[in-house]
């Protein structure tokens, strides 16, 4: 049980660390695509947090098996939320990349520092 407990914390820590790695990339990188890559990590980390909560000891995926009694199922709700969040994430990313492509066309670069100089 100790191991499971540790693992539980470990999941959250990995969430925290991945989150800030992503955020760090967003803040400190000046390449626009790199910023979006950072944003992608940042969002994925949150998915891990949600999914970590749905786990129940001895449980299984929440797909009801006919005729099996006393089966413990994991929580379906966080899964539903994250399904939505994943799609939201990829949508944002696609839009961001489309903007970056246009930035590159109009400015000839995707480095923020160079763009700011040319304006």
């Amino acid at each position, binding site marked *: 049980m100790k191991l499971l407990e540790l693992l539980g914390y470990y999941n959250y820590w990995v969430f925290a660390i991945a989150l800030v790695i992503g955020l760090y990339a967003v803040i400190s990188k000046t390449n626009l695509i790199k910023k979006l890559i950072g*944003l992608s990590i940042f969002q994925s980390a*949150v998915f891990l947090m949600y999914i970590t909560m749905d786990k129940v000891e001895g449980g299984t995926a929440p797909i009801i098996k006919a005729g099996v009694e006393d089966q413990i199922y994991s929580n379906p709700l966080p899964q539903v939320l994250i399904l939505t*969040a994943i799609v939201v994430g990829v949508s*944002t990313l696609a*839009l961001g990349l489309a903007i970056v492509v246009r930035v590159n066309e109009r400015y000839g670069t995707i480095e923020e520092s160079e763009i700011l100089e040319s304006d």
Partner: protein
Amino acid sequence: MDLIAHLPALQVIVPMLSAPIIVLLQPRGLAWAGATLAAVVSFAISIALAVAVLGGETQTYSMGGWAAPFGIALSVGGLSALVLLVVTGAAAIALLAARPSIDQQIELERQPMFYSAWLLGLAGLAGIVVSADAFNIFVFMEISSLASYVLIAGGPDRRALLAVFKYLIMGTIGATFYLIGVGLIYMMTGTLNLADMESRIGEVAQTRPVLVAAGFITIGLALKAAVFPLHVWLPNAYTQAPHMITVFLAACATKVSIYVLIRFDYMVFQPTMAEHDNQFALFLMPLALLGILVASAVAMFEGNIKRLLGTSSVAQIGYIMLGASFISLAGVEASVMHIFNHALAKGGLFLAVACIAFRYSDLRIQELGGVAKTMPFSCAALVLCGLSLIGVPGTAGFISKWLLITASLQSGPWGWVFVAVILVSSLMAVVYIWRIVESLYFGGSTNRDSVISEAPLQLLVITWIAALANLYFGFFPELPLALADNAADVLMGYGK
């Protein structure tokens, strides 16, 4: 179920389901007509909703027939009704006036997508306002955000792209922070419904995840609401957006985030968490005051008229936050009223700017000398809305400033400091509005032929409707006041 009962759902569904149809309307002008129709219908729905909740009853709706907390519930009270009026009103007004300006700025073949994104933005904002479910708010927040990125990216200048990229990054960080906060609360309470959260959060209110969640939600929403100093995305985005989009977004986009912030905080955290109201006030009040002063000061020196007005919005958001941070009936009422009145004033101002921009593409103030001679009506509307922004008596802006000052004085020993800040910033507002007026009316008219070439009638008429609304609600503020009263009662009433 009768039609009235369906109104909260229709408020979102009408613009949302119109959006895919609009994309298919290729022939010239049809997309605009369709989008405008949808927006006007939404506006009518929000008026009906406002009338329905004036009695003080909250309209609720269970999506899919599943009762909360199992399904997603919608609820519309006084506060939501007022914000809905602002959102749908801004969309309807801007769309009604939009065609000439948009024809000028967006290529014809891209217009259907543009108008569709506009409706999606409207649907997203309306969806946030009616929702009573924390996660559902996130989903609609994303619809509205993505749509506004698209709309701003329609700006003709290449700087629009950079502005929108920055907005996208900041907006996504804000939304993700909100999502983390909601996740942490869900972890501790097992529910996503706001009312259910309020009732279940009590026993775990002092646990660390909930404390951290409160922080994440406040910061995330403050980022989306452009509360100083998290506002850096706003002036650029407003400056570079197509003119009519600036009208729409400036009138309502950040206000919806403020609405969520106020609602979440007053409803879920304050009644349950000891000392939270003090922490909330302590956190927001300095930011609000700094925002009011710094942004007003910066606005005095801005060169571009749109950027100036955008920066002034940051200060105005400060007023709204200041009212909210008093945690009192009068404060909340002032804050809610200012949401309404600032939308009127800023929407009108940007409409007038759109009129001017229709004829003069360079919007730097010193380049606009003597424009009043060629566009007397547009400039007069700009002056009228400018007076409202300053808060001159007889305009809508005065009502909320007066309420805010009264609330400040009731807030305790520091009241006079707040009043001083409000007055100083009003003075600064006089200066920056005056700079515009002076240039328009008394500026160098060297190369202006005095042949009157006003903006198209469609644009002008709508601009004047907005300008006169500033006067009307300056003299007859009963309707928004009643809703704001109701909102303040409800917000201050949680947990009591």
